[in-house]
């Protein structure tokens, strides 16, 4: 869950973002408190607080005085835009690098992608058309 070599507070922020993206945390729902995060990830509360502060600065979370932190309306949309902007860098470039090493061209990759996507959608629907 926690990996090495990357600032812990960034990882905590990303995990909260992931939960907003997959809707396990809905907009206007209460975000986990720093103490809850600290206990769950077994990290220092100050580190958890730093991750939460980062998301507050970004406008993903906001504070209701005396109650706690909440997910801002529009947070999911903003995160989608942000993640899509870095998607190619994070996932496509390493994919291309590995494909090149194996002698696979862009067309081969495209064909593979379509094949796998078709297989995945059949599995999910459970009802091949």
């Amino acid at each position, binding site marked *: 869950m926690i990996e090495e070599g990357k600032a812990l507070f960034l990882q905590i922020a990303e995990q909260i973002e992931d939960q907003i993206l997959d809707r396990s945390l809905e907009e206007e729902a209460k975000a986990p408190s720093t103490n809850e995060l600290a206990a769950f990830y077994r990290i220092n509360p100050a580190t958890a607080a*730093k991750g939460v502060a980062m998301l507050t600065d970004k406008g993903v979370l906001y504070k209701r005085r005396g109650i706690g932190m909440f997910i801002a309306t529009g947070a999911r949309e903003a995160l989608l835009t942000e993640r899509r902007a870095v998607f190619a860098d994070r996932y496509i470039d390493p994919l291309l690098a590995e494909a090149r090493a194996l002698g696979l061209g862009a067309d081969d990759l495209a064909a593979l992608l379509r094949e796998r996507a078709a297989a995945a959608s059949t599995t999910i629907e459970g009802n091949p058309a």
Partner: protein
Amino acid sequence: MTAVIEVHNLTKRYKTKNALDNVSLSIEGGAIYGLLGRNGAGKTTLMSILTAQNFESSGTVKVFGEHPYENAPVLSRICFVRESQKYPDDATPRHAFKAASLFFKNWNQEFAEQLIADFQLPMKQTIKKLSRGQLSAVGVIIGLASRAEITFFDEPYLGLDAVARQIFYDRLLDDYAEFPRTIILSSHLIDEVSNLIEHVVVIDDGQILVNEDTDSLRDRAVTVVGDAAAVDAWAGGREVLHSESLGRVRSVTVLGALSADERAEVTASGLDLAPVSLQQLIVRLTQKAGATNSAENQEVR
């Protein structure tokens, strides 16, 4: 200043060896600190002097702004859990906790009872007859339940199994979150405590080698793996902490955080990047300091 501990030019000399060599250190407080280093590096000596169980040879030591020696107001606010605490022969854990409850004004008996149950500590046996792990548990319980403003844990886990150590870490985090205070944790098990500590102090050979926030240390070094020639070309001009080879493959650990562009460049040139854990980083830094010291000593000879 708000620092709870201030040490300037502290030296502790034993006959021929300096256990602490001109150490200066300021600890702000209100955080969990990791005091790390090899055996004999000077960790216990430093903690003993800060708690008035040992004396400095020279330098100034201030805890809560005052020298701790025979200073009851200061000492009542500090708890030092020693690695091998001695108790009277006929003392049972109950006696030890009773004494601690009289001494520490923030002592919480309810918390102590909970910890006794957590660690399944036999209360009627004499401490002398307890196992090594149970003896450590007595220290851990006193350290946690005393809720002192500064608590030193000197390798508190000796003999504690993995389950008991996890109980210690979990209870420490829980209680610290509820009652923030200054915790100074000395440990060899760096991987186990790296996520708990906010600030790292590394002592090596009587000197402070690292004194930094854990987060800023975390991406301080990186390991690059790949074809030896390509790795060497990339690592040229960088500060290399460690290097090893397997056939034509070389793995080099370098100091210095990489920017996103530099990372992309490394990957584009067919090299692999691997993160360096806090434990690996500290091991490499300590080894490097050791190598530099022995090189200097040889030059002198």
